């Protein structure tokens, strides 16, 4: 055998790396081969340095911190595992089908309520359409703002206008409300021809106009706002 074979053996010098037979062969060869014997010395020198590297092992900077952090991560992972278990349980067939049925029932119920509510609203609209007009139309409100009567708004004078009712006062104005148009005869007279002409222009016939004017006289409510002097 050549020296390469023995030199390979020289590198495998630590316990358990060579068989007894290989050890004997190598020992015999080294007795007769100066080159390999010299090589052995060099390898042993290097090996003694490797031993020193082995003995100077790296040490942890902060073992306590590392152990604590490992345990913290495990505890955290344990919590996640509980959540996983819960989710796994949720995925079992019984719970999965029960959830699907529940969701379907909820959606069905919502759809039923939605359509039945729409139906009820439609019925209500139909009932209103078939009922009398007075039930459908809310009270009509007219508002007049006047700045020409600035000198008039003296509280007592205004209150003395017996035909008016509902007096209120805010920062820069007085407000008087008259609930029924019929109680304000001059205004009602003025209103009638103007309204009649307007309605005629809009294409209403005489009967419809009388009905509208009559309705307004019966239901319309006026309110007057007088600005205070200097406002």
């Amino acid at each position: 055998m050549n020296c390469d074979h023995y030199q390979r053996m020289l590198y495998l010098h630590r316990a358990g790396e060579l068989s007894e037979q290989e050890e004997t062969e190598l020992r015999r060869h080294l007795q007769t081969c100066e080159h390999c014997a010299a090589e052995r010395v060099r390898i042993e020198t290097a090996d003694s340095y490797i031993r020193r590297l082995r003995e100077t092992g790296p040490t942890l900077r902060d073992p306590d911190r590392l152990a604590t952090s490992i345990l913290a991560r495990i505890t955290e992972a344990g919590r996640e595992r509980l959540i996983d278990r819960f989710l796994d349980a949720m995925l079992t067939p019984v719970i999965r089908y029960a959830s699907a049925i529940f969701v379907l029932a909820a959606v069905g119920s919502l759809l039923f309520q939605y359509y039945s509510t729409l139906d009820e609203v439609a019925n209500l609209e139909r009932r209103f359409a078939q009922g009398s007009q007075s039930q459908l139309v809310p009270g009509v409100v007219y508002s007049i703002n006047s700045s020409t009567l600035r000198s008039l708004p003296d509280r007592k004078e205004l209150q003395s206008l017996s035909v008016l009712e509902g007096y209120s006062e805010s920062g820069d104005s007085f407000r008087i409300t008259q609930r029924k148009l019929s109680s304000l005869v001059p205004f009602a007279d003025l209103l009638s021809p103007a309204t009649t002409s307007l309605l005629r222009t809009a294409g209403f016939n005489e009967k419809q106009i009388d009905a509208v004017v009559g309705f307004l006289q019966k239901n319309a409510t006026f309110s007057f706002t007088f600005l205070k002097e200097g406002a």
Partner: protein
Amino acid sequence: MHERSDKTTQQLVLRSKQGDLPAFDRLVRRCQPYAYSIAVRLLSDEDEAEEVVQESFIRVWKHLGRYDHQQKFTTWLYRIVTNLCLDHLRAAKRKARLFSPIDVNDDVEAVSDARNLHEVQVDEETIRIAKALTDRLPTKQKLVFVLRDLEDLPVSEVSEITGLSVGSIKTNLHYARRTIRSLLEREYNIKSVEL
């Protein structure tokens, strides 16, 4: 670890397997220096090594049910550690290939400048040299060299940890030691110096 401490380790493993967290805490504190030593020698980076140690113990905790009591616990642990280290090394290699055309062994050059081993007194320097030397080895040689020569594990255990055959381990050890010796002679001038 000697036989008595092995027994204690096995007891802690058994208790940990039953969900005893304080026992696992003791197991971690007992074994983490060895796991860290392997990791830092393989990765040559303290932060990465700590990360690997953490990840290894988390895996141990998760998979304790799969642990076979016929095997030494530390062998199982070291296998997890080395596998994670190999993953890190592969990822680092990929990253270096993708992002850096420059040789990643910058610190090897720095150590080479030191030359004179007689001046090397401090442990830190020795560790730095070990890192510089092992970083020059191909991954498989580095793995067997670290486990066998630096961690002092028997060949049979190195085989169990790495999954390599005894023959393959010896071949890789032979090449690793030859490279290390050559580096020590060429770059640190140790041919016949007294250590």
